[in-house]
């Protein structure tokens, strides 16, 4: 019972983090100091709320954080902590929730920051995660992550934060959080979805909805993607009964609302491709001609796709392989040799196409080449298995 209460409070707590932070910064507080004060208030809330639940969590946090800021200025923090934690009272002006999320996201995804810093700052200031949780998720010492965050905040300090930022950067950062997966104790993919959902409340931009749809449509397949022994299961072999149909339905609905605006972008197109995979009752029923048509759209978004978006060209090569034959698909990958010929995925795709083409020795060699270039243990093991399987079948 107590545990349940704590967890509930934590969810409510984290949802209001960016709103409180935005309120403090808008009032003229320094972003760096305000974020520190809010982090302290959060830790305090986790301690106090289970026994003294606040009437208005947001006001409580704003008040406690404000007192922390005042205390920090007076350098006599410790003495008052106890009393104020319990007697915190509401004042603040109410602003629109979506605006605040966007505002803080733009701060955290400032273009002057390196991607790793953007990700860390976003998870702390918008996601409300603690430094320790973020450190765990990326397998670095807590002190390292603390330093990364404070350096990032120092970089952002003094920048004008009242200008709208670059939404494309925010989308990229959220997608980075998503693809970082669910290492450690924190489900980063789930966190990215939560943040993307908040973002779609804050902007009408269809690409924000496209990104949320893409995440949902991929995340729906997660339960089938790894078997109980930790082995990667490729899309064509997944137990589709394990896919999350509710997530798929929501992803499709959000994608449709984005496409209706008729301002296509890469996340919407990638979501459409994911939706077509999710829609097939079996691998054989996959609508590859439709997928290829979407890949044509994706590739057309770049002037020089081979150089600017080789991942899209490579994905398209797979679709070509399924629609026009494996040999045609392999020819498409040839165009990429100079650009990504040293990458794991290029070799893995060629292994797949050689296998479809019936050339098992070539498939085994390509998979082995891919395994040598893998930078992830699960993927390396998967590719070694693919190579061994193809070689054994060729005998």
């Amino acid at each position: 019972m107590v545990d349940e209460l704590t967890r509930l409070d934590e969810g409510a707590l984290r949802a209001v983090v960016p709103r409180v932070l935005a309120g403090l910064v808008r009032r003229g507080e320094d972003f760096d100091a305000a974020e520190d004060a809010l982090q302290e208030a959060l830790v305090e809330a986790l301690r106090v709320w289970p026994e003294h639940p606040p009437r208005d969590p947001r006001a409580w946090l704003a008040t406690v954080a404000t007192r922390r800021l005042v205390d920090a200025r007076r350098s006599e923090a410790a003495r008052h902590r106890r009393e104020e934690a319990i007697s915190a009272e509401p004042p603040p002006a109410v602003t629109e929730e979506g605006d605040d999320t966007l505002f803080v996201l733009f701060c955290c995804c400032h273009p002057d920051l390196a991607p790793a810093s953007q990700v860390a700052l976003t998870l702390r200031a918008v996601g409300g995660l603690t430094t320790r949780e973020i450190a765990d998720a990326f397998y670095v010492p807590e002190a390292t992550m603390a330093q990364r965050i404070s350096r990032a905040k120092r970089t952002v300090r003094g920048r004008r934060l009242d200008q709208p930022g670059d939404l494309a950067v925010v989308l990229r950062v959220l997608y980075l959080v998503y693809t970082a997966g669910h290492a450690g104790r924190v489900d980063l993919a789930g966190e990215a979805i939560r943040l993307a959902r908040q973002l779609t409340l804050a902007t009408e931009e269809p690409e924000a909805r496209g990104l949320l749809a893409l995440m949902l449509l991929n995340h729906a397949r997660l339960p089938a993607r790894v078997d109980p022994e930790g082995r990667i299961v490729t899309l064509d072999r997944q137990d589709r009964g394990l896919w999350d149909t509710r997530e798929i339905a929501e992803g499709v609905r959000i994608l449709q609302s984005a496409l209706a605006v008729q301002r296509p972008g890469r996340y919407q197109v990638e979501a459409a491709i994911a939706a077509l995979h999710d829609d097939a009752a079996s691998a054989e029923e996959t609508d590859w001609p439709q997928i290829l048509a979407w890949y044509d759209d994706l590739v057309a978004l770049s002037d020089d796709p081979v150089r600017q978006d080789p991942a899209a060209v490579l994905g398209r090569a797979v679709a070509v392989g399924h629609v026009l034959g494996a040999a045609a698909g392999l020819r498409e990958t040839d165009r990429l040799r100079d650009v990504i010929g040293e990458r794991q995925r290029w070799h893995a795709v060629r292994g797949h196409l050689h296998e479809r083409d019936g050339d098992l020795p070539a498939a085994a060699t390509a998979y082995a080449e891919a395994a040598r270039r893998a930078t992830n243990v699960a993927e390396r093991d998967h590719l070694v298995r693919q190579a061994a399987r193809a070689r054994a079948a060729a005998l």
Partner: protein
Amino acid sequence: MPKYLLLKRYRGGPEPHHPFPPMDQWAPEDVEAHIAFQRHVSELLEESGEYVDAQALTPTRTWVRYGGPDAAPVTTDGPHPETSDLIAGWYMIDVESRERALELAAYVSSEPGPGGEPLYEWLDVREVMSEAPSED
């Protein structure tokens, strides 16, 4: 409790107990058995309270050194990449004694290879220096 690093290699080290092909040329069931054994070792170390860290390294290596003032770093992949030592990864363990470290290393080396036979792979066992001065 001393810490030890059990280093595994892609190549280098003493004369191998017996030659064996790269893993992508093994029978699929031998690959499975090998990978399952590695997972089992990590679980065993965690259960015994001796696990500190385990990491795998990619086989790509670049040597690099200071290039001098206002010069780019100097890099090379050579000179003899086929014969030199190439570390593949490690277990770091925190154990009671050097004997225990050797015992665990020998167990790791019993990992199954082609035909399910032990690989008898050489492991490099190195003690990690502690930070704090010893009390005396």
